[in-house]
């Protein structure tokens, strides 16, 4: 029997071997076959459960990535609130993104709570538990990040309501024109397995925030996970080594405006203190 990569495969191959043995034993007495059948079925059940758990973890991981994508697009949209790029189209897109995030969050939290609440008949191995805990910590972090963006969105919408036409006068001229179509398209491409299954009505912004806060505290109460025991899988500075499809130095060059000679700057703003640079 060849040793394969994952434990799941190994048990599957073992199962086949046992089948062969069982066929060989059919020539023996009936009661022996009966007990062996019971043991086999329980074993097969555990193997199935392990495989199911593994599948769920992979599903949660993919959902996590999707949620990350949706929340980062949400951040791009919220950053334009109150600026000259703010308009009703932007706010509608923001609501849609929020709804999508809400549905992904709900499904993901339910599945992770089920994975980690330890109500399974088979105790999970240490590695399994570690993977689930990692996913748990990632989910909590994403939720907190999303919650802070939601709060900012609520405050900004409160400060810059676009209900009347003269409200547009108070929008801040930041130099942004509306270019959020690409972002909206990116959000639309996000797919999660349970999106089509569960259709719940989406709450408005304030209720969403309240609901998310309740979910966070509820989750932390129900599942005791020591999140400081989770370790990063990547070494520091690793993300810089990934390939980019286009070299992005042009962005930095673009940001540098026509050079004003440094001497002029120094003469104009002379910091009154001793040699330290002043930020403010």
């Amino acid at each position: 029997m060849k040793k394969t990569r994952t434990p799941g495969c190994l048990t599957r191959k073992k199962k086949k071997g046992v089948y062969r043995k069982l066929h060989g034993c059919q020539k023996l007495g009936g009661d022996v076959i009966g007990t062996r059948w019971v043991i086999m079925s329980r074993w097969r059940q555990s193997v199935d459960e392990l495989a199911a758990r593994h599948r769920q973890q992979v599903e949660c991981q993919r959902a996590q990535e999707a949620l990350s994508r949706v929340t980062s697009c949400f951040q791009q949209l919220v950053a334009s609130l109150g600026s000259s790029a703010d308009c009703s189209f932007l706010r509608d897109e923001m609501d849609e993104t929020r709804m999508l995030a809400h549905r992904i969050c709900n499904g993901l939290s339910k599945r992770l709570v089920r994975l980690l609440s330890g109500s399974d008949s088979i105790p999970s191995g240490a590695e399994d538990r570690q993977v689930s805990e990692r996913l748990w910590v990632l989910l909590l972090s994403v939720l907190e990040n999303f919650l802070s963006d939601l709060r900012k969105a609520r405050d900004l919408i409160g400060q810059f309501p676009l209900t009347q036409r003269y409200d547009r006068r108070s929008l801040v001229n930041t130099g942004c024109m509306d270019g959020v179509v690409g972002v909206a398209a990116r959000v639309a491409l996000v797919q999660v397995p349970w999106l089509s299954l569960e259709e719940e009505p989406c709450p408005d912004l304030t209720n969403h925030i309240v609901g998310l806060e309740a979910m966070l505290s509820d989750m932390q109460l129900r599942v005791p996970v020591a999140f400081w025991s989770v370790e990063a899988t990547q070494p520091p500075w690793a993300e810089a080594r990934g390939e980019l499809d286009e070299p992005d130095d042009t962005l930095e060059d673009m940001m540098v405006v026509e050079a004003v000679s440094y001497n002029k700057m120094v003469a104009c703003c002379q910091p009154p203190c001793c040699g330290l640079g002043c930020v403010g």
Partner: protein
Amino acid sequence: MTIRSARPDRGQHFRPRMLCLNKLEVIVVEMQDPKSGVTGSEQKLNVTTIPHVFAGKDIIAWIANKMKTPPEEAHVFGTMLVAFGYIYPLQNHKMLVMCNDTSLYRFQAPYFWPTQKWVADDSDYAIYLAKRNIRKKGMLEPYEQAHYNHLHKWLNHKWDFIVMQATEQYKAGKERKKPDRVVFDCQERAYWILNRPPRRTHSAMDCGPERLIDPNEDEKISFDQYRRKNMFYQQAIMRSKVKSSVSLGALVKYITTYKTHDPFLAPCQPSNPWQTDNDTYWTLNMRGVDVPTKMRVERWSFSLFELLTDLRGRDDFKVFLKKEFSGENLAFWEAAEELKWGTGSSMSAKAETIFKTFLAPGAPRWINIDGRTMGLTVKGLDHPHRYVLEAAQTHVFLLMKKDTFFRYLKSPVYKDIQKKALSPETHNFSPAQLEQNAQNRSPGIHPIILWQQEEEEKAKTAAASAPVDVKAMMSKIDRKK
């Protein structure tokens, strides 16, 4: 403990002293009005043009016009707007000041405004650094690299989330049009320069520790608080007052004497350790140093109090007094200090020794105080408490101040030490050397070693100040004969 940062959540979330932010926001919104606001122009870059760029002098002129203030005040107000992050400079983005010329500025997006409620979090900063790392492929500034390593260690449990979110945000940013991307990146960079300023710069967002109470809320003062306030003010009116000319004169005299010694008003010699990370100043001014600095010696001449509180000065004074054979006043003063600051259990023993050494008639080191004070003190010593020697100590202090102190200042001991005193040269560090200093900070002397040194000093002074046995002296002189 929340998952957002490693620091415990004590329920304190309000930053103090930031009430000006609400008022600044109103002004910034007024600046946006297309008719009565500031007029902007377009910024031409290599590939594209970006609207809404403003010249510094236009902004300052608008502020001077709107608030009816002279242009210097408007200039300062403009700098405040930049320092708090409502406007960011496009050229020289690290200097957050507003220049009264054609240098270009742009308004910050409300998402990045420094409102009191939204604190710039460590997790967000980590995501920003990871994003910048991806974009610049590891070429971060040294202070950013230091922050990155620190955050990787302390936010290790959510580092996967940080990298994932950074990659997703980077990709989401790429979906926008080029000019918008440039603007967003500029905005984010300005936001983080403000909230995580580079080394050895100070930022306007520096405020005290976070508070439990929201400073923006109006305070409700209760009836009982008003009643107490009234009582306090009524009593204050009834107190005896000093003429302001007298008290101001004393203040002016104090300032003229001490202004060269204040580290905020005059530069520290050789250099202020808090600014340059070089602790020569502290080593030169330690307690047990042989040759003190000139500034220190000058300070001793200001008053007897200064001389006695500086322990090195006290040692010098003791040397002088030993020559004059009048050390008992200072010894009594020191013994009284020990009684005041010592433990409660040792008080009666100390009081006994003090009485035997200084106050009893015919004592070896009898101090010369007037009869009334002596009577009071001796009576008080029956039931000794901490301040039983207060009257005698004050009398002795005044004696020393009026007589011995001036003789000391004219004595050869003092003149000698004035001549010998060091005058260190001012340090002149380049920025690279300052970085070096910051990285090579020494941990200083271990407190146990300091304590051992102090014990040795005490033993030495105890041996040296043992009462001079007149008979032994006389016998020594006899033997010489």
